[in-house]
């Protein structure tokens, strides 16, 4: 948002692609790693576009775009080690990508063929939660469980574990999120609360939720909060890396406010022209998370045009692949849903299933 420049914000790469120093944080990775981040961001943006197109073509019910938030998601997602679990909300295509979840799986959710299309245990990327804030408590409980499992503070990178929970600026108003802060603080849980402040909760600007910067919320619950330039993949990576380390080593929760911007509509159902000005969009376009990395790689790391052309081509390929996977998704059946309600089926629901099957069969016969 315009006018927030005075709030202390960690930045390591300017919108112009210049690296800057910060007294507390640094990004120690190679230029190759940075190029990898760029690749991630370009690919997820391209996949996001494809999903958007699929929705427009009637192939998806809905799509919540991550555009503008690529750095926040790749920067944090690429900071994870194998024992760092992620609890997303519903816009975390980038985090999912970093976690190795096939994009088709995420998209299948919005095609409404499946509500849990990836293995949360294998991917360490938990289920999407559409109900704002609810999962922050699950994430906290999960983190408490890690601690009970003895997986925190062993000074053993092979074992020490953490949870990172993603949510938005709007979510900070929910009781559950604040209760998650209480529990995480009270039990000193190994958790990173990763708040993507994209300035909007559908049509409501951040000023409706809070009159002060959101990272300050944490302090009142007894743990540190920090604002990072959410469009700076290097800064996000550095800040997340440190917060994860705090969590794993038993030093408790951190709130990271990634200050970023939702470039698109809230979802494909939304019409942002009703409530926000083009000026704002223009302002943020200049802070694009991808452009600045490309500029850096061009200017300071010797990456030539071929690299970028190849990347664009790869992106198109990946997107085409995702598209065909989506279109090939098998249709669900109601019959199987009957057996999913309970771990141990009830006689009552079994009867309903039986009746349904017989009823459905009667139509088959008619045909």
């Amino acid at each position: 948002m315009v006018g927030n420049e005075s709030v202390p914000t960690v930045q390591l790469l300017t919108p112009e692609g210049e690296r800057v120093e910060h007294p507390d944080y640094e990004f120690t990775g190679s230029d190759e790693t940075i190029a990898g981040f760029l690749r991630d961001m370009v690919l997820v943006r391209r996949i996001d576009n494809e999903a958007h197109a699929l929705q427009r073509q009637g192939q998806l019910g809905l799509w919540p775009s991550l555009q503008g938030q690529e750095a926040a998601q790749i920067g944090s997602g690429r900071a994870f080690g194998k024992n760092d679990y992620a609890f997303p909300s519903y816009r975390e295509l980038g985090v999912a990508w970093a976690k190795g979840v096939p994009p088709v799986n995420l998209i299948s959710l919005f095609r409404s063929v499946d509500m849990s299309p990836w293995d949360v245990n294998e991917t360490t990327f938990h289920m999407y939660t559409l109900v704002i804030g609810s999962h922050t408590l699950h994430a906290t409980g999960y983190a408490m469980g890690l601690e009970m499992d003895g997986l925190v503070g062993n000074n053993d990178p092979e074992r020490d574990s953490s949870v990172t929970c993603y949510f938005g600026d709007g979510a900070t108003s929910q009781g559950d999120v604040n209760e998650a802060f209480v529990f995480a603080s009270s039990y000193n849980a190994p958790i990173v609360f990763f708040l993507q402040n994209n300035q909007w909760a559908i049509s409501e600007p951040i000023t409706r939720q809070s009159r002060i910067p959101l990272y300050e919320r944490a302090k009142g619950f007894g743990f540190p909060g920090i604002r990072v330039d959410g469009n700076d993949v290097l800064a996000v990576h550095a800040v997340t890396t440190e917060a994860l380390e705090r969590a794993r080593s038993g030093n408790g929760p951190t709130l990271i406010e990634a200050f970023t911007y939702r470039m698109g509509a809230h979802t494909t159902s939304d019409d942002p022209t009703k409530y926000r000005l083009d000026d704002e969009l223009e302002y943020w376009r200049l802070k694009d998370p991808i452009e600045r990395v490309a500029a850096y790689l061009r200017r300071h790391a010797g990456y030539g045009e071929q690299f970028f052309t190849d990347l664009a081509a790869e992106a198109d390929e990946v997107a085409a692949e995702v598209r065909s996977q989506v279109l090939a998704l098998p249709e669900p059946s109601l019959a199987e849903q009957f057996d999913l309600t309970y771990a141990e089926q009830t006689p009552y629901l079994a009867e309903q299933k039986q009746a349904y099957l017989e009823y459905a069969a009667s139509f088959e016969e008619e045909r």
Partner: protein
Amino acid sequence: MSNLTLVKALNAGLRRALESDPKVLLAGLDIGKLGGVFRVTEGLQKDFGEHRVMDSPLAESGIIGTAIGMAMRGYRPVCEIQFDGFVYPGYDQIVTQLAKLHARSKGLLKVPLVIRIPYGGGIGAVEHHSESPEAYFSHTPGLKVVTPSNANDAYWMIQQAVASDDPVIFLEPKRRYHDKAEVDLDGEPMPLHRAKVVREGTDVTVLAYGPMVKTCLDAAAAAAEEGTSLEVIDLRTLSPLDMGTVISSVERTGRVVVVHEAHLNLGMGAELAARITEQCFYGLEAPVLRVAGYDMPYPPSRVEEEYLPDLDRILDAVDRSLAY
């Protein structure tokens, strides 16, 4: 007379409510500039100001809890819950506070609060956007629960709900939002807590409400072609139920099918079956049959057509009823 969609009828009804009583307020998510995700409040903030049409912070308990406080101060708040599945964070304030304040205060505190909830499935939505929570509210004394099935009722019922001195859960059948009907903008509405025979018939009484009324009317038309005469009643009010209208129909037909999207187990159909059987024990030719959502969480919407009661399932129940 005006031909309006259900959304526009609600919008017109809310506008009239805002005009006729300065104490009426609207609160909820995105109801201001955006006009609500379904555009029910479109243009109202522009015309009545930010003080009367309030975009709330993202917290349902907060929306309802502060609205209760405003009602204590003499206001008549109308809260919008964005989708059925998001009412539960505010459930405690509804069942423990809102529903009880009149009784607890021995009538000193009136809490004329309306909670509007778009509900039901059939729109191909993602999870939590297609639920039917009416039984959770109807089981709660102190609340009144109503649901229009068409634009004309929507226009009038929302005004009556706002005028009611009791808290009203106002359920809006979202899959009928864009259905148009003639709305009599100046007529004399029927009372809020009254059911309505929307099609007369002689063989079986079909009870429905909200989104299922149209489905049942379609079923009745189909049945008529096969020579079966269905009487369709739009309940309109779920708490209190208008049993008078129901019973006088059942006394004639002797057979009842209740239809709702909500889960079968402990749904409205259960209460209707219990009461009808008690009141018409000797008059029933068949047990009250229920056509409802199965007792599973709402499935991925790709299969919702099979999950939701439809014409065929209703006719199947009619046939089973007639077979007794």
